[in-house]
């Protein structure tokens, strides 16, 4: 159970730990500066005294606070399993794991950057002073990470269930992946830039000093991010199990990688098409745009592909697996597919609007009033680029959803991800239609009130008209699909939340139910006695838990278990009054 005193103890211990760590870094950096960098100091009249006194004050306060609270916690762990398994301690260890490792990662990057750029020109960061503090930060936070990580692993093995640790691993994986991606994008951009300028991907012959600055900084990103990411990701994948936090992390990475890849692919096509249609970049090389677009496309594409492959390999939690039906989309793929559909559709919609607008402008000759003769070129290139990229994304994802809906209609048409996607499209389409409707009406009213409309205003009217027509078409198609889906009843949630009131002696049965059903059963209270209606034995309870989220049955969002040592009862419930599918007015 959550104990406020325990939470306070761990919060204060964390504050004391960070204070002490920063103090040690300051003193260590100061000590190195006083010895190794002494000859470089031009002026530090009071600086040494100010810094030394500040760091010492932090150490004198922070260290005893952390030490006293940490020792108290360790003693409690020795005498009580409850302390070791408490949420406050797991969160403390997880937060410390994440914080110390990420700070150490940043420090590793700074140290590598300083080392790799040493042979370069002098006007680069970081300075030797900063590098000294980065070395101190790397060792101190690295040691703190190792100390707490080992304690965490001693108490719960890597394979065991620990969501706070899952979050910490995901945070480090995310930061290190970002470092690696930045380095990879910069390396590809630099190589491509050299290739375009000189015909060679890297400089030949004697390296200019500025090369060390550029490639040293890039190498620091790649090595720090790559090393840490490879290690932590290998660790995460080896942990196995069905982990909600890992899945959430994978979704977040895909949410960044997929739109970035689609956007850069569309931008690249746009630039290629406009050049093919006669655009002359003049000031820059014809292919210079590739430097800023192609590296992002390649890196985000690789990140997308790898993480999608990992998503496909995720084992379903038992509760999800049990309600899987043949032909349905496996957990946890439905959400990324739905997001891909939304992204692809938005690009296709924009492309169709642009083409329609362009056609109307062309027919009415209203598009070139403010532009030169090639007024159509950018709009056409942009719309074709967005369309060519968005179309396969949209059709691929939508086709997958529709095929699954045909194969397993009860499961798929009731899936919350599909419902939310359709709702989002309908709502977005209606909002767009309303916005462009106001814009169109405004111009029409201006004309009716006698304000003359020039070619530019006519063109804006045509744009609004095109957008309204396309948005309403999208709303009509997806709205109809949504109505059909709604006939299958309320949406199926991704999981049923289960809480339990437990009587004395029911710990074993609770553990067996958790183990055998794969459900997360949260204990919300302790009963003084065995509940009167605890009539179902373990087998019956397992059967009822398995059927909680089965399609066609009562759509439970939550369930409450009253548990005794030898049996219990389950009460499934929903926040909404259940309505039969036949009452929904299916069409």
């Amino acid at each position, binding site marked *: 159970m959550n104990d406020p005193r325990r939470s306070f103890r761990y919060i204060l211990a964390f504050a004391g730990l960070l204070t002490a760590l920063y103090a040690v870094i300051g*003193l260590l950096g100061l000590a190195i500066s006083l010895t190794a960098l002494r000859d470089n100091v031009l002026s530090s009249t009071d600086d040494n005294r100010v810094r030394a006194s500040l760091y010492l004050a932090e150490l004198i306060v922070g260290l005893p606070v952390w030490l006293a609270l940490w020792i108290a916690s360790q003693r409690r762990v020795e005498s009580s399993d409850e302390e070791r398994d408490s949420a406050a301690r797991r969160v403390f260890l997880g937060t410390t794991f994440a914080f110390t490792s990420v700070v150490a990662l940043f420090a590793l990057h700074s140290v590598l950057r300083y080392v790799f750029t040493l042979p370069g020109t002098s006007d680069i960061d970081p300075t030797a002073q900063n590098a000294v503090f980065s070395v101190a930060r790397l060792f101190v936070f690295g040691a703190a990470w190792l100390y707490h990580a080992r304690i965490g692993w001693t108490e719960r093995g890597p394979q065991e269930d620990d969501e706070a640790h899952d979050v910490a691993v995901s945070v480090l994986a995310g930061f290190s992946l970002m470092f690696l991606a930045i380095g990879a994008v910069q390396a590809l951009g630099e190589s491509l830039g050299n290739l375009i300028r000189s015909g060679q991907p890297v400089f030949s012959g004697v390296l200019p000093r500025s090369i060390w600055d550029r490639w040293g900084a890039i190498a620091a990103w790649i090595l720090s991010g790559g090393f840490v990411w490879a290690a932590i990701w290998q660790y995460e994948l080896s942990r196995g199990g069905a982990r909600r936090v890992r899945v959430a992390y994978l979704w977040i990475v895909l949410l960044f990688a997929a739109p970035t890849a689609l956007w850069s692919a569309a931008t690249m096509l746009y630039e290629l098409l406009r050049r093919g249609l006669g655009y002359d970049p003049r000031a820059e090389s014809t292919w210079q745009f590739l430097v800023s677009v192609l590296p992002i496309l390649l890196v985000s594409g690789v990140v997308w592909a790898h993480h999608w492959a990992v998503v496909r390999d995720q084992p379903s939690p038992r509760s999800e697996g049990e309600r899987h039906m043949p032909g349905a989309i496996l957990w946890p793929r439905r959400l990324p597919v739905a997001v891909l559909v939304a992204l692809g559709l938005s690009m296709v919609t924009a492309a169709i609007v642009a083409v329609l607008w362009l056609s109307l402008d062309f027919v009415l000759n209203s598009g070139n009033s403010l532009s030169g003769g090639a007024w159509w070129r950018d709009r056409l290139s942009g719309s074709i680029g967005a369309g060519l990229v968005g179309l396969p994304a949209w059709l691929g994802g939508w086709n997958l959803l529709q095929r699954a809906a045909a194969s397993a209609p009860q499961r798929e048409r009731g899936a919350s991800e599909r419902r939310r996607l359709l709702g989002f499209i309908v709502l977005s389409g209606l909002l767009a239609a309303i916005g462009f409707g106001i814009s169109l009406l405004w111009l029409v009213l201006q004309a009716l009130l006698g304000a003359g409309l020039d070619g530019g205003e006519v063109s804006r009217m045509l744009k609004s008209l095109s957008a309204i027509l396309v948005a309403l078409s999208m709303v009509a198609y997806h709205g109809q699909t949504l109505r059909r889906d709604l006939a299958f009843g309320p949406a199926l949630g991704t999981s049923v939340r289960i809480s339990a009131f437990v009587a004395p002696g029911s710990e074993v049965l609770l553990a067996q139910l958790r183990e055998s059903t794969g459900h997360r059963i949260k204990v919300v209270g302790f009963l003084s006695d065995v509940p009167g209606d605890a009539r179902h034995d373990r087998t019956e309870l397992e059967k009822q838990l398995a059927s909680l989220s089965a399609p066609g049955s009562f759509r439970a969002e939550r369930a409450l278990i009253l548990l005794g040592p030898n049996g219990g009862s389950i009460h499934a419930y929903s926040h909404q009054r259940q309505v039969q599918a036949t009452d929904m007015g299916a069409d």
Partner: protein
Amino acid sequence: MHIQRSVLGLLGVSIVLLLAGVVVAIAASRQPEKTYPPGTPEAVVADFIRLVEAGKLDEAYELMAIPGLSRERFDEQVDPAYRNESSRRVTLIGSDVNGGNATVDVAISTLSYTDALDVSEYTNRQTYHLRRENGRWLITGPRYFGL
């Protein structure tokens, strides 16, 4: 038993850290400032910075030869910077002498604070330009000081 050993280890490390901290603090507060050979560009820049920090602007101004920079204008630039509650460490990054001209690159790390709960640190880089006139180095730039 294992916990007891671990606690003893933590206590030992903490005591060592505290003692080391006291030693570093005492050593740092007694550290003499580096002196450069007189007449070098580094020595002129070091003197200039120390004079400005000490509020001796008349003497600092004598080390400059920036056309159009009046004494009053110099005061306006420097005065607010050195009077605020902050502590500075100026570190030499590099210097270059080319005939009668020289440049001295420095990093200025400023520890800005109002109290222990409001401490921030930032580093600026500045390149001082010097010209040799009548056998002595005079600062000709930068025109604005980021001390």
